[in-house]
């Protein structure tokens, strides 16, 4: 009970602060649903929540994590959430094909960290070697980038093996190869086996999709573009902070709270890799700022997917899947 006066004073202080704020109206409540469990690859968004960046932009943001058994995508079309993180451009293309009124408003990863991994001391040393490997791949990968691997490089379908996010089958077989995120799996494998595996980025072999793309509904863009702009800007600021700051503890605490299996070692590795691989600041983002979208690149990726047999010629207009209205403004570029 001795804390009561302290509590009272704190309350008084907070009330005073709120009264002094220049913002007249209450913060807009928005929900961001992600495509995976909380992880540093989504760190910028957690950072913007943790350090009050969203609040300063007049937003009260709730993050709804995804996961292996969670499909948040239908919630966006339903209007149950306002923003969605998509893994790559395939699903936005599907939305365009199905005439679902949603769009990509920012592309956070200029390069997709999706990669294939083989054992450091295993037989597969080159990209071409991997075509002979039993390839551990989950359901989503099989129906997206594997189709391209098959079409563009002739990876045989017969080599596909089930992948359920467990490293055991890979570690168990020195001849195996598996799918992974370049920012996470190499470290998970090193922690489990002591050796960092060989990493082959799909992006280095022509897979030029953006990754960690931000999607929202067309009607929100039409009715409240101001809110979308604030959310995109604040997320970009959050990402800049998360990549540059010495101390990202506040964001990492939130990440670990949402995903207890996350370790400090994995977070450190992931942040280092995101910088090394210039996932967020490479390509056009160098000049145009984080989140940059180049429509020509979107068209080129779409053409590759058409070639891979995923879509028919002219079936979708890739330009309707994205909008550059909210990015390419150099936010956060010195």
């Amino acid at each position, binding site marked *: 009970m001795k804390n009561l006066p302290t509590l009272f004073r704190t309350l008084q202080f907070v009330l005073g602060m709120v009264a002094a704020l220049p913002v007249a109206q209450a913060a807009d409540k928005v929900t961001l649903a992600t495509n995976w469990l909380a992880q540093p690859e989504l760190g910028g968004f957690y950072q913007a929540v943790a350090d009050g960046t969203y609040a300063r932009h007049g937003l009260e943001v709730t993050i709804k994590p995804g996961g292996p058994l969670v499909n948040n995508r239908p919630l966006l079309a339903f209007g149950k959430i306002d923003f969605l993180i998509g893994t790559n451009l395939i699903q936005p293309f*599907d939305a365009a094909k199905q005439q679902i009124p949603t769009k990509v408003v920012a592309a956070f990863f200029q390069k997709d960290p999706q990669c294939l991994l083989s054992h450091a001391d295993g037989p597969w040393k080159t990209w071409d070697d991997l075509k002979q490997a039993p390839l551990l791949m989950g359901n989503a990968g099989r129906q997206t980038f594997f189709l391209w691997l098959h079409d563009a490089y002739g990876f045989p379908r017969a080599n596909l093996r089930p992948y359920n996010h467990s490293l055991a089958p890979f570690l168990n077989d020195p001849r195996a190869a598996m799918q992974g995120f370049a920012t996470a799996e190499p470290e998970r494998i090193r922690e489990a086996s002591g050796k960092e595996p060989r990493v082959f980025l799909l992006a280095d072999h022509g897979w030029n999709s953006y990754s960690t793309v931000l999607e929202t509904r067309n009607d929100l863009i039409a009715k409240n573009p101001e809110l979308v702009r604030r959310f995109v800007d604040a997320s970009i600021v959050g990402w800049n902070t998360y990549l540059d700051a010495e101390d990202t503890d506040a964001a990492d605490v939130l990440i670990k709270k949402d995903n207890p299996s996350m370790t400090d070692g994995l977070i450190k590795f992931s942040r280092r890799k995101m910088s090394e691989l210039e996932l967020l600041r490479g390509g056009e983002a160098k000049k145009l700022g984080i989140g940059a979208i180049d429509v020509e690149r979107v068209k080129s990726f779409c053409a590759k997917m058409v070639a891979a047999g995923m879509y028919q010629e002219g079936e979708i207009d890739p330009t309707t899947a994205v909008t550059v209205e909210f990015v390419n403004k150099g936010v956060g570029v010195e």
Partner: protein
Amino acid sequence: MNERSLWIRLGAPMLVGAALLAAWEAWVRCAELPKYILPTPSEVVATIFAQWPALAPAWLVTLKTMLVALAAAVVFGVALAALFASSRLVETSLFPYAVMLQVTPLVAVAPFIVIWIGWERVWLTQLVCAWIVAFFPILSNTTMGLRSADPGLRDLFTLYDASRWQRLRLLLAPSALPYFLAGLKVSANLALVGAVVAEFVTGTQVDNPGLASTIFTSQLNSDTPLMFAALALISLTGIITFFAMEWLSHLLLARWHESAVGER
């Protein structure tokens, strides 16, 4: 089952089904729900026809897994039940493991089954997964059935020095039949569920995809009508299986067992 009761058995659920589908159709149209959120039944039917060249082979793949898994469940379930019924000691020693197999979530053990069986043998793995789901009702029901023979009839067989084989064939097997058929009815639909879940957990297929792959891909591609079309085929399979099992029970039990005797 006479003519009239047959009509009620088929007609009543059909009428309910038709009413539900009509309500669904009307609601989606009135609320103007886009088809990516909820397609109308007519859109689903149209999708089944439009996508038939892709759906039919997928359906066959799932059907094949289901039927082979069910056949294996019958063979192993009945053989094991006969073993259990022949000795209390065997039953007491093994039944807990059968229960264990039954309650272990497939999703959890599937990755290991994949490794044990060998990951080249995808279909065999799916088969084993579906079998695990399907076999228990047959085992437990048949075991119970084999033990349920009337004690008076057992005495009668003893009185006339019946051999073990005669006892099994002429007394225990017919006594167990209604129990076995009740188990089969449950197992048949579990085999279907098992076949679909097994395909999910062992990885959807790029070659020879079953309906689970169709569902997964249509979900991934936000193709809701296609997903509903696949679900409709699974439901249809379940309903056909159910009626097939009812018919089989009727055929085998109608003249003597209470469970299959229609109201007179």
